[in-house]
């Protein structure tokens, strides 16, 4: 919340926020309110920096604080329940935007850290685990060092090309550590682990130092909507650090065999992912077969247990392409400047543009309304005008941040 240079909120001068609202001739405030709303909408888009190398394969550990402070009811119904509910959405969005990444969940209470789920790529397992956490009580104190040590044990062994991240959601203002937290911070720095913290109560200096030393983000929530916004910021891949190695990863693309084939020689077999389960789930002749060792799996992406090959399907990789080739931000123009005899219409949704601002794509010169602009940049990730043109897009050079 507070920047480096400016002081705390109570130290800064009065912000005369009422001066931002200006009445027009008829005394109505609607134009300035609409102006503020549209500026807020576009603020998100303009903040993104382009042409930076991103860490696409991510290994993220989420550490949930389950200390006494999380029973506080300033976020309804209680901090811990709000956190768990928002984390369920976060897990689904995370795997949607980063399909080849992995996630692990840990919790910290009673001055110890416990691992809730191992690092893995199946969203359902994490969501089930989160739902199971709602019944567990929050007690004791948070221990930052123990949880960071436990996360580091696993992250240390991850390959160099993947980004190693830790996200701590903490509501407690204190931490109870067995040793020197600064030495832990130094070890994290050496191992290239990026730690971010979302605080629920107030800014804590140790967390701020941790995030600064490891290049992470430190934020404190204002309310539930802000909390959701901050979590969403962690869904998109962060810029890769200079220490991230780039390598060619061997991956397999298995084909799916269905039971419809009469000529196939596939016999019914047990799949490798449900080998240990007591029910007969996973027994059948359809599934994905690893190209190297022919073991069967029910769903992708997964790492083959027999030969260690990462199995993905082409759409999984395609889901991440939009991070690498995002559309350029549109240029803002005034509607009154457009020289046409007919009314100005949006190219995407064919609606007549009534607001004073219209947005133009620099590559295809088509005009769009504000809603289509936001839709294009946040959800669709391709400009409809450029998609309709025939010329192939240039692949941009990616720089390391």
């Amino acid at each position, binding site marked *: 919340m507070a920047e480096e240079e400016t002081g705390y909120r109570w130290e800064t001068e009065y912000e005369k926020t009422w001066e931002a609202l200006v009445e027009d001739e008829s005394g109505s405030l609607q134009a300035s309110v609409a102006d503020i709303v549209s500026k807020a909408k576009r603020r998100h888009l303009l903040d993104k920096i382009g042409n930076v*190398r991103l860490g696409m394969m991510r290994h993220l550990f989420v550490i949930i604080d389950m200390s006494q402070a999380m029973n506080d009811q300033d976020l309804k119904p209680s901090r811990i329940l709000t956190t768990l509910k928002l984390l369920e959405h976060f897990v689904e969005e995370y795997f949607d935007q980063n399909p080849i990444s992995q996630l692990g969940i840990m919790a910290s209470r009673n001055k110890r850290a416990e691992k809730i789920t191992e690092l893995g790529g199946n969203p359902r397992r994490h969501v089930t685990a989160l739902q199971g956490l709602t019944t567990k009580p929050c007690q004791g104190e948070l221990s930052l060092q123990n949880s960071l040590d436990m996360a580091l044990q696993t992250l240390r062994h991850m390959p160099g090309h993947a980004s190693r991240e830790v996200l701590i959601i903490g509501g407690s203002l204190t931490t109870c550590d067995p040793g020197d937290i600064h030495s832990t911070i130094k070890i994290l720095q050496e191992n290239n682990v990026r730690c971010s913290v979302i605080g629920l109560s107030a800014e804590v200096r140790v967390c701020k130092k941790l995030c600064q030393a490891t290049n992470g983000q430190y934020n404190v929530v204002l309310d539930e909507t802000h909390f959701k916004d901050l979590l969403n910021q962690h869904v998109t891949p962060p810029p890769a650090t200079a220490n991230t190695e780039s390598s*060619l990863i061997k991956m397999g693309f298995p084909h799916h065999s269905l039971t419809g084939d009469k000529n196939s020689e596939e016999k019914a077999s047990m799949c490798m992912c449900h080998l240990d389960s007591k029910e007969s789930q996973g027994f059948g002749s359809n599934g994905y077969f690893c190209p190297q060792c022919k073991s069967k799996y029910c769903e992708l992406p997964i790492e083959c247990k027999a030969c260690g090959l990462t199995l993905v399907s*082409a759409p999984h990789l395609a889901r991440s392409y939009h991070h690498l080739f995002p559309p350029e931000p549109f240029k803002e123009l005034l509607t009154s400047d457009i020289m046409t005899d007919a009314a100005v219409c949006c190219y995407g*949704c*064919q609606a*007549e543009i009534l607001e004073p601002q219209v947005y133009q794509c620099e590559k295809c010169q088509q005009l769009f309304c504000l809603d289509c602009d936001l839709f294009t940049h946040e959800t669709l990730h391709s400009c*409809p005008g450029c998609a309709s043109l*025939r010329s192939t897009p240039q692949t941009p050079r990616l720089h390391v941040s």
Partner: protein
Amino acid sequence: MYEMSDQTAVSSLLVLVLDTNPVWWGSRQQETQVQLPECLDAALVFANSHLMLSHNNKLAVIAAHTDRSHFLYPMRQEEQMQMDADGGDASVGGGDGKYELFAQVDSVVKKEMQQLMSQNPEGEVSPDSVVAGALAMALCYIHRLEKECTIGIKLSARILVLKGSEDNPSQYMNFMNAVFTAQKQSVVIDACIIENESGLLQQACDITGGIYLKIPQETALVQYMLWLFLPDPTVRSKLTLPPRAQVDYRAACFCHRHLIDIGYVCSVCLSIFCMFSPICSTCQTTFKILGPPKLPKKKSKKTS
């Protein structure tokens, strides 16, 4: 359509994407092959049937041409007012008791299509259409209608693509972006293919849960459309539909465009290669070559 238990009316929006590539349509000369006017008639019959099913149903038609996409129906506001001012087109099948909305749809689509075809495109024309652009426009339109929908009515949208020409591989990324967006917005994409199988549309239908069909007999186009594609996705679970085909999800390597089972993926830009190479051709990053572990050198004895 059956009503939901909580009494919210469901309005179904159908977006028809027609492939109007003049090169491909012009190359169909035989008697048994269906021509563009017949295909357009079939599409209009289908569109009218959709509008007839419920008062709340809505329609949009987009033409995917060789180098651009164009909205055929609904027209823009000022063109609508122009047409009303001209006195309307009552002579086109509208005079004698035909439901006014159907007559309007028919006349508008036909007029816009004529205008589209009469414009001569400059430069080269290729035998494939840009469906990705039409899909992106359709999704923007659906997004706008969902916002403008009146409270109390739920809008369920789907896209039907009528395609005949071949796929254009350069629009892969825009196409997949549109498909993932459709999946997120719960928009079902169906495909009705006339001649050339399309791998892209097969993937799109599989990901969004739609129907993909290559028409076995082209003269029966209307029948296939009305039997298979007219029912809403909610009703389809009760019907017997053609079985889902096995979709080939293998990736194509960037260097040769061959489909591969095992490949190497660059960790920076996610391009796929079939062989190990020290430099990625897309993002120019150099990779560490993992050689065999170094053994200590044995000192060779000098032979005197």
